[in-house]
Every structure is written in C-alpha cells, then in structure tokens.
C-alpha cells in the first residue's frame, strides 16, 4: 500500500484523538505515577547531539552522552543511598529481572543454591514472573490486617533455601510497610537479600533512602518517578541500584570517569552480563536527567510531600462514600473497593462511568487481596480543583448506582466505542488486518 502524506497524517492524527494522555486530563492510574511530563525534557532528548549518536561511535565523540549517564547515575545513587546503578534495564520489569539475576549470581558466587524467593501477596504481577524467569520458585508471603507484611508468615517461610524477598514499599495498598525494619532483619539474618520494587518511589523522594530501610537491590522507574512519559506503553527505563557488595554483579558496561574523560568499563568477571543491546534507553535517561536538574534537591522533597498530601486529601474526600479496606494514613496512593456499592454496580462499572466524566479510571482489580480494588494515585502534578472535581464525580457515580444503576452498568456513553467484547477477542483472535 502506498499512501500520500496528507492521508497518513490525517489517519494518525485521527487515531491520536481517540487516545487519552496526561496532557488531556487527570490520569489517577494507581501504581503508574502518571504525572505531568515537562515539555523541555522532550525537547532536550531530541537534540541532535543526543538523538543522532551511534552507540558504537568512538568514545571521544560521545563524551557528553557518557557524562550525562555518569551524572544521572550519581544522582540516583544519592537519592537512594546505593553504591552504584546500572542504567541498562529498559523498563521496570526488566529491572526486576536484572535484580533477580544479581541475586542469583550473588548466591552462585557464595556457592549456595537457594531455590526460592518470597513475594508478598500484594506484589505487582511482574515480581513473581521475574522470579520464575530466573528459575526461582516464588513463595507467597501474606499481608496482615493492617496492610503490612505478616511477620509470622515471613518467619515461617524464610530459611536458608530462600534467596530473598521482593518488597514494594510503599506497598500496592499505598501504605508504608510499618514492619519494613523487621522484614529486612528477618531476611538478612537468614542470609537473604532484600529486593525493592521502586515503582512507588515517588512517595519517598528526599524523605528517606531505600538503602537505609535495609534494601540491597532495587529498580527505579524513570517513566514514573522521574517524569519521563509512558509513551502509551513505553519506552521506559528501569535502572537498578545496589549496595556495595552487589556492585560486582551489575550488568556492564558502567560509565567510569578518569580525570576529565569518561569511558565504558566492560571488565568484571562476576557481572551477570548484558540485559539489552548497548547501554539502555538513553533517550529516556536524557529526559530524567533534565527533570532532575529542573527540580533539584529542593524540588525532590516537595514532589514527595505534594504527592502524599494530594493522595491523603483525595482519600479524605472519598472515605465517607467508598469502602476503605485499610484505614491508615496513605502515602502517594490509596485503595478503595466496590464493597457495599448499591445494585451490584462493580468496580469495572465505576471505572467505565468515570470515562463519561472525562477522567481516566484508576487502576482496577489490583492489588489482588482487595476484592474489587480501586487504586487511586493522583500524583503531585494535580491541582486541588482537579482532585475536587474527581471526588465529586466519584460521589455522583455512587448516587447514580443507587438511583439509575443501568446508566452506570452500560457506561461509557461518551466514548468512540461502547464496552468491548474481550471474550470474543480472546476466543477468536484477530491480531492483524487481512485482505
């Protein structure tokens, strides 16, 4: 097929108008930190001095790129307290996989064959999947009634066969795990390592350092915490930071500075190897670097404080109207549910009805331990007015569920399509256009 340019542009512009991003409106998708993506970051990543570099160019012609990677790594180390970061992983799950391979390599070098990794019932689905991609068995650890790690269950499952635990803190209920110190101690006492899933790092910026909490290895999501756009599903970037004793296992190359020259360091026999070609999603690194330089150390703490304040305020507006399974001060996000909603209106119905009010729905049906979960993360880049409008809509939907449930159950009514038949899509897969 050969199309003229006006048709191509109209086609894709038309498609873009069927899509919704942070620039279009509120996007409280829990766990995803859908914050505003500063425009200057986009422009900087497009500079020819960055975008038109070949990864195998002679080093003397890419000193700026290496300097940026070196300085970004230094900043991430300072924020988290780790000894080094690898910028190579291309996304959060890729970072998790890298982290698990580091854990595996650590025990291999020690001559220990540990076969299991503990994964809390609150974990993102990528956690157990990353564990099993390294040949470990994922063993679930329960949460207690306060939404913390159940220490009794942890003690019962942590032994010398367990390589470590993958923990998300703040966890996916949006709660800071009050048992974190004990969790790390129990795992460390049996020789295990603590992996931190950094998806929720936005709440801790400038507040505390993950390493001080007892975490040994952790990924960050530059496309969440550090404001690089999600691109409709990527590219992301999932740098992995480690404590000193794990530096030797990081993927290579790392960037080193000798005098005023930067170079790639490819040595290191204990490295797990490469996780992707070349050096990672460099373009994303440029955006995160620009963001960090824009907000600076003073801005970082404000990000966390505003994110947490926004979440708690929104929660205060909704707690009277929605079931709140874990009633505590939340961090950057919180989880409600559809329990007790009138006329069997479900979380899915609420999500679809929100579309009619011009909002992207929250994360739904996750975490799995909350039936009908509605996970809301407002981020720091929303105004009080937006939060109030969203709260009003959520309250209104509850009224509608009582008075006119069909309206909610058949929503959305204002989208280009109605609810789509997912069962048909899976039973009769049509995955490509055919003549």
């Amino acid at each position, binding site marked *: 097929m050969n199309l003229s340019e006006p048709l191509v542009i109209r086609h*894709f512009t038309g498609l873009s108008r069927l899509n919704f991003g942070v620039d279009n409106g509120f996007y409280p998708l829990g766990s995803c930190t859908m914050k505003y*993506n500063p425009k200057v970051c986009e422009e900087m990543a497009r500079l020819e001095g960055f975008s038109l570099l070949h990864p195998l160019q002679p080093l003397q012609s890419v000193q700026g790129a290496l300097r940026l990677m070196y300085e970004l790594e230094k900043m991430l180390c300072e924020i988290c307290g780790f000894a080094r970061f690898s910028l190579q992983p291309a996304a959060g799950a890729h970072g998790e996989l890298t982290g698990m391979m580091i854990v595996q390599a650590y025990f291999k070098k020690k001559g220990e064959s540990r076969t299991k990794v503990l994964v809390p019932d609150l974990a993102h689905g990528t956690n157990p999947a990353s564990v099993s991609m390294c040949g470990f068995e994922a063993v679930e650890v329960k949460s207690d009634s306060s939404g913390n790690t159940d220490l009794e269950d942890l003690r019962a499952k942590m032994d010398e066969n367990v390589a470590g635990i993958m923990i998300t803190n703040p966890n996916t209920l949006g709660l800071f795990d009050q048992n974190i110190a004990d969790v790390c101690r129990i795992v460390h006492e049996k020789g295990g390592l603590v992996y931190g899933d950094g998806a929720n790092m936005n709440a801790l910026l400038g507040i505390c350092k993950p390493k001080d909490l007892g975490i040994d290895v952790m990924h960050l999501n530059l496309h969440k915490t550090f404001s690089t756009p999600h691109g409709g599903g990527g590219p992301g970037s999932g740098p992995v930071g480690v404590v000193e004793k794990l530096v030797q296992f990081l993927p290579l190359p790392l960037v080193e500075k000798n005098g005023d020259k930067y170079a790639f360091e490819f040595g290191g026999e204990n490295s*797990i190897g*490469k*996780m992707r070609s070349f050096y990672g999603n460099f373009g994303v690194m440029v955006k995160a670097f620009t963001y960090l330089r824009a907000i600076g150390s003073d801005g970082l703490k404000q990000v966390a404080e505003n994110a947490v*304040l926004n979440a708690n305020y929104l929660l205060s507006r909704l707690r009277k109207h929605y079931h709140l399974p874990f009633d505590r001060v939340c961090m950057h996000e919180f989880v409600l549910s559809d329990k007790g909603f009138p006329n069997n209106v479900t979380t899915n119905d609420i999500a679809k009805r929100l579309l009619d009010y011009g909002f992207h729905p929250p994360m739904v049906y996750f975490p799995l331990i909350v039936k009908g979960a509605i996970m809301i993360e407002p981020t720091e880049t929303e105004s009080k007015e937006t939060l109030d409008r969203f709260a009003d809509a959520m309250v209104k939907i509850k009224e509608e569920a009582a008075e006119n449930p069909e309206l909610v159950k058949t929503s959305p009514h204002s989208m280009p399509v109605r609810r789509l038949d997912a069962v048909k899509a899976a039973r009769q897969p049509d995955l490509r256009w055919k003549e």
Partner: protein
Amino acid sequence: MRFTPCNERDREEMLKALGIKAASELFVDIPKDVLLEKQLSITKALGEMQLRREIESIAALNKSAKQLSMFLGGGCYNHFIPATVPAILGRSEFYTAYTPYQAEISQGMLQAIYEWQTYICLLTGMDLANASMYDGASATAEAMIMAKNSSGRKKVLVAKGLNPEYKAVVGTYAKANGLQLKEIEVDELQNEIGEETACFIVQQPNFFGCIEKLHEIEKKVHERGSLLVVAVAEALSLAFLPKLAEANVDIVAADVQSFGNSMNFGGPSAGVVACRQQFMRQLPGRLVGKTVDASGKEGFVLTLQAREQHIRRERASSNICSNQALCALASTVYLATVGEKGLKDIAKENHENAEYLASKLEKAGFEFPFGKNFFNEFVVKRKDAKELQQKLLSKGIVFGLSLEERFPELKDCVLVAATEMNDREDIDKLAEQLGVLLWS
C-alpha cells in the same frame, strides 16, 4: 514549583481538611531513624533557560551524525526519518498515555498497535507479531525462552554470526534460565544439532553483513525437531530479502530501529517477536486484537492476556509489562509514510550505496574476507585499517567498526555500512580521503 499546581492556599485548605499542620506529619509510618534531616546533595533547581543552556552544552560535547559521515552499522543504522514521524510522535495523546488497559479511551494506540502487528506480519510473512519488546537483543532472548517452553528442551545453539550485543543478552538470559548455550559456525550445524536442541539462533543478514542460506539451515534444524529462531538487526533488509516465513522460520526476533527511530545512542528503539500460529500461547508481551463493542461496532483491545504476568504471575510466558509502544508507533508511521514501494526503493538504494562503497574500497586495496554477499554492510580488511580509521575520524568520517576487540581472529577487519544517507557524494568523499591517506 513549576510542575506542582497546588499553591499555598490550596495546601493550607488540604492540610486543614486533614486536621494537620504540615505535610511532613503524613510520613508517620516511616521509622524516625531513617528520615533524612538534610537535603539531598543534588544541585539546586534550574530555570528553563539555564537548564536548556546546560543540557545543550552537554549535547555539544558529542559529535552527531549531522557532523560526522557515518559508515557505521552493527545493529544500529543511520537512516532518514520523514517529518511525519516526529509530527505524530509529538501528539501527546499518544506519548503521555499509559499502556492501553482501558480500551474505550485508548482506541488510538490500540489500533496503531494492531496496524503495527499487521506490518510486521506483512514484512516477515509470519502469522502473528506482538506489540513490541525492548529491543532486538532482548527479543531474541525471549524467542529462545519461547523455544525452550514449547519444546521442553534445554540446549540452544547460536550462530557465530549473531550480533555480539545480542549474543551477550541471549547468554545472560540463558544462564539465568539454566539453558546450555553453544556457539557454532553455521556449517557445523549438522553435527551439533540434536534431539535436545530447543532452537538454533541465526541472524539474517548476519553480524558480518552476509546473507545466510536459511533454506539449508531450516532443513537441518527441523529434521531434529528443533526450532529456527532468526534475529534481524537491520529491519530494512526485510524489504530486500525473501520473506522469512518462506524459509519455514519458526520465530523471528527483530529490532525496528531502522524504521523511523533515531539512533539515540542505542536506545530507545523497539524489538518485536513474530511467530507461526502454533506458538501463539507462548508469545511474550502484549497483543492487540480486533473485536466488537456492545453495539456491534468494531474496536480494539489488549487480548490473550492469560499469557501475561498480571494474570498468570509466576506462570506467565514472560515478565514483560511496559514495552516500547511509542517506538513501535514511530515504525508504524514510518512504514505508512514510505509505503511498500517506497520501502523497497530505500532498501535497494541502501544495497546500491553499499555496493558502490565496496567497489571504492576494493580499489583502495581492501580485501573482503567474508565475500560480497551482503545487503547494506560488510567486512573489509587491510593491514593498516585501524590507523586509517583514526585518520579518517579526524576528517569527520566514522569508518566502520573495528572487529578485533570482539573477534580477536578478525585482526585488521572493519565492519562498514552504507545506508540511503551515505549517498555517492558521501562515499566519494570517503574514497577521496582514503586516496589522500594511501598515496601521500
């Protein structure tokens, strides 16, 4: 704060609603002994003008393909990008969206991915393609795991001509998965392949630019019930060579940087896995399918999610979640813009430029240790190759990649590439400089 809209008054009202004096009171659950008392040691915030100046000055320390004549490939290629691509990528309805979980409000990205899956199927001849992977190298590693999972076999053979970056990533994944990996020459295949071999991984064209005889390879692989995985690092070759499906390839793992994605110092680009129908359930990553809505109208959704980590958790076909959707979109817009004929023309132009380059290098006394059966890159050899590379760099020419470091046996060998960006003028300039260096 530039990016936080709540002003002092809003904050006061919110704090009041919560019955607290300061936001710091919300961090009660964090152990006191870890709370930071002083600010992080990171530079202070910069205004946008200063910020630009600083970042631009860092970019200026690099020499880009605008300043250098680039005869460099090896898994990343300096291709032309039509203006339609940045125009559409700049639509923030696309780039500031998340993965299209909520289909009704994400029809744009979902349809674009469906079109992308279609393009990949058309280009490779394969039955289906996923919504993208991180890059070609990790896609190849995931293809290997697919082969392991569907065959239950634990040995993997890798052709020596696989891009070293890909080989390294495949090696990392194999080690973590307890797979036994062996590197072989293609002509050793008959002897090496056995009933325990999950797959043979070969690159087309291979890292040295040579076009592999996939028909012969395929027979040897399938005779032993093993799978053929073909990695493609230069996607433009798909428009020049016969369709991969014609050689009975089982799984294709490609990098599509060449289609509308800037080189970006090696990332982001997008990878993709395409396969035959029978491997649908083992395919990693997102898939978009066409369906109908409640009123019978056509629409698109993420589908077959029972393979994926958020449903199947530790039993998922992969742990991948975010992929490289925007880069896949770039490729989709690129392919729509240049069209089928345009793409073939660009591929032909690449090949002709490479042939012209080869003829000039032959005249300059270079040898061709792997012959001349190439698409747009090839290996040349000359005793003083390294010295010439250095001298040419000072003239603003990046003359290929020296292979010695990665392949000690390939002393004095250089991998050079020519794309549509290396036109006759560019190549003549290189030849002229070579002439000056060689005869002075």
